[in-house]
């Protein structure tokens, strides 16, 4: 589904990603872990198409297409979803209007007619139930005045509405209490299908108690320095990131 090959990227001339190679197959859940400043969010930003990140080398192929050539909105319509680490507040734009526009853009892209108002509201209702978000949130402006937990739940709700093929969740677990964490994880598990994939970016292993990854990568200093099964996450939880840093430094020296 997604093939990243030797991806290098910089922000404002500063090199952040220093050669990332990664393949995600349909139905897989990949966890990307790593200490702060290792490049996790930059990777998410490149995949979603943020302009301030400059790709200097390498390629990203998504469903056989060159992802880097696509606009952010086309990526979304082709099935990529980014769950933001810091969801944006947009006063004056209602959740209903926002989601209706987004869903209908997706439908148009897929050659479908826009949803009728009643079908759309039914879809909203169903998805709200699925991800257990407070129905009142959907009547407000996008993220305006939402608590940290509500914002993250709202990301999962949007994901449920848009049914992406590849969802990238950028530290969706940060700042969540245990109940919100459970809601977020349940949302992901309910939306998981054999034909869609997830990249879960996280600092802590805690989320991975609820979302069981197939593959765990450790990102450090712009490179993937370790890839293994879910047991790697447990090891990181126990030992922290220092041993990885040491391993990397030793490798460089030897």
């Amino acid at each position, binding site marked *: 589904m997604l093939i990243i090959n030797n991806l290098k990227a910089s922000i404002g001339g500063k090199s952040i990603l220093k050669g990332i190679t990664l393949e995600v197959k349909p139905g897989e859940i990949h966890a990307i872990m790593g200490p702060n400043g290792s490049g996790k969010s930059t990777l998410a930003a490149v995949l*979603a*198409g*943020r*302009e301030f990140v400059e790709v200097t080398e390498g390629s990203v192929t998504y469903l056989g297409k060159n992802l880097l050539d696509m*606009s*952010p*909105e086309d*990526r*979304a*319509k082709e099935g990529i*979803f*980014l769950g*933001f680490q810091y*969801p*944006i507040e*947009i*006063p*004056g*734009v209602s959740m209903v*209007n*926002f989601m209706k*526009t*987004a869903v209908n*853009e*997706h439908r148009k*892209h897929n050659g479908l007619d826009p949803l009728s108002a009643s079908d759309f509201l039914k879809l909203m209702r169903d998805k709200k139930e699925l991800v257990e978000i407070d129905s009142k949130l959907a009547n407000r*402006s*996008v993220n305006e005045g939402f608590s940290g937990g509500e914002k993250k739940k709202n990301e999962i709700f*949007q994901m449920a509405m*848009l049914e992406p093929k590849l969802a990238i969740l950028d530290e969706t677990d940060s700042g969540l209490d245990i109940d919100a964490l459970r809601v977020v994880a349940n949302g992901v598990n309910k939306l998981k299908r054999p034909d869609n994939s997830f990249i879960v970016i996280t600092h802590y292993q805690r989320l991975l108690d609820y979302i069981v990854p197939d593959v765990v990568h450790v990102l450090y200093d712009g490179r993937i320095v370790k890839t293994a099964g879910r047991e790697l996450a447990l090891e990181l939880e126990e030992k922290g990131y220092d041993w990885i840093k040491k391993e990397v430094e030793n490798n460089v020296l030897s």
Partner: protein
Amino acid sequence: MNGRSEVTERYIGLYKENIEKITTSSSPYINSFREAAYERFRDMGIPTKKNEAYKYTNLNIFFDHDYKSYFMPVTSDFIKAEEFRCDVADLDTHGIVLLNGFYPTINEKLRQLPSGVWIGSLNAAAIKFPDLVKKHYGKYAKSDTDGLIDLNTAMASDGVFVYVPEGVALTKPVQVVNLVQSDEDMFSQHRNLIIVEKGAEFSIIICDHTLSPQKFLTNAVTEVFVGENAHFDLIRVQNEHNAACKVTHTFIHQEKNSVASSNNMTLHGGLIRNSTYHYLGGEGAECFSYGLFLTDKWQHVDNFVNVDHAFPKCTSNQLFKGVLDDMSTGAFNGRILVRPDAQGTLAYQKNNNILLTDDAKMDTKPQLEIFADDVKCSHGATIGQVDSDALFYLQSRGINKREARLMLMFGFAHEVIQNIKIEALRDRMDNLVMQRLKGELSRCASCMVKCG
């Protein structure tokens, strides 16, 4: 040399030439204010940019022009006005049309609504309700610095009069449609007086339209009295063409525990200056002052707000927003005065502006003068571009950049629009603003003039 500017002399001349005609057709009480007002105007003149309150607005562009002045309507004008229909669906109002500043109904100059409310011509009201007019006319519209208010008092002869007696709640709003139409360039002035007595509830919509493409200048004064515990809402919808200049001065005087709001929605116009004066004249009074403007080409919109906290425990809120395109310009001046005795004051002010081009320009000036110590006051002003993080957020959900920008600008404007309590009008404003942001013509009512 008397030190007066040429442009001021022009209006002094206009006064001298027409005062006799104006006096003949007006009520004696209103006439009794004219001479003193003329003298004050003669001293103050047409405001220039040297006047702090007009620092960012050059009135001469419109005031220094030879208008065919218009002091009495003719019968054919009345007919034109009667033909005008506002086409806002579901907007159920009591309608009044003012043509070139005159209340143009031939037979029924004043009418009483079933609830006991009177609406109609100020000139007729001054004769029918002399005590009411004496009690309120000229009592609130006062300024030591703005000669235009005196110019209006000196020469205006008609406008809208509304009287809402004590305890009456008028559920349907009154809608005043100000039309200007002439075959020649025209200067007009009107004067409104709205009296909302103790415990009454009333809302008024004032719509400004131009019906012919000539150059127009309007200088209008509105005085509002809001009695104890009364509720009053004013919504102004300004949709005039680019060769029109509108200067409005609105004075809202509030008594104890009353609530009043003013909302200036400026969709179109060449040069617009709205001065809104809120006087919180009794404990527990609360006022809301809103404004939204969308400008392009060479348009200029200036909102001047003056909130006077004269009594303790009053609350004021200001929210003004602007979206400026092309080389248009705008200004905001928000004054909050908290007098020494006004303890327990809450006063808020927010002014946000989006510049869509490098050539658009906005000046914003908060002006807080606080002489009491138990006061909670805040103000904030921003001038910037569409938020790129928010733009990306929408794009990342599959919404294309153009649409996403539109949604953000609409959301920005909607924050002001959402304060309109009349649903049909709120929907219509949303609609007109969306059209305007899309670059489509936002024509309202049966207007034949292309405002763009």
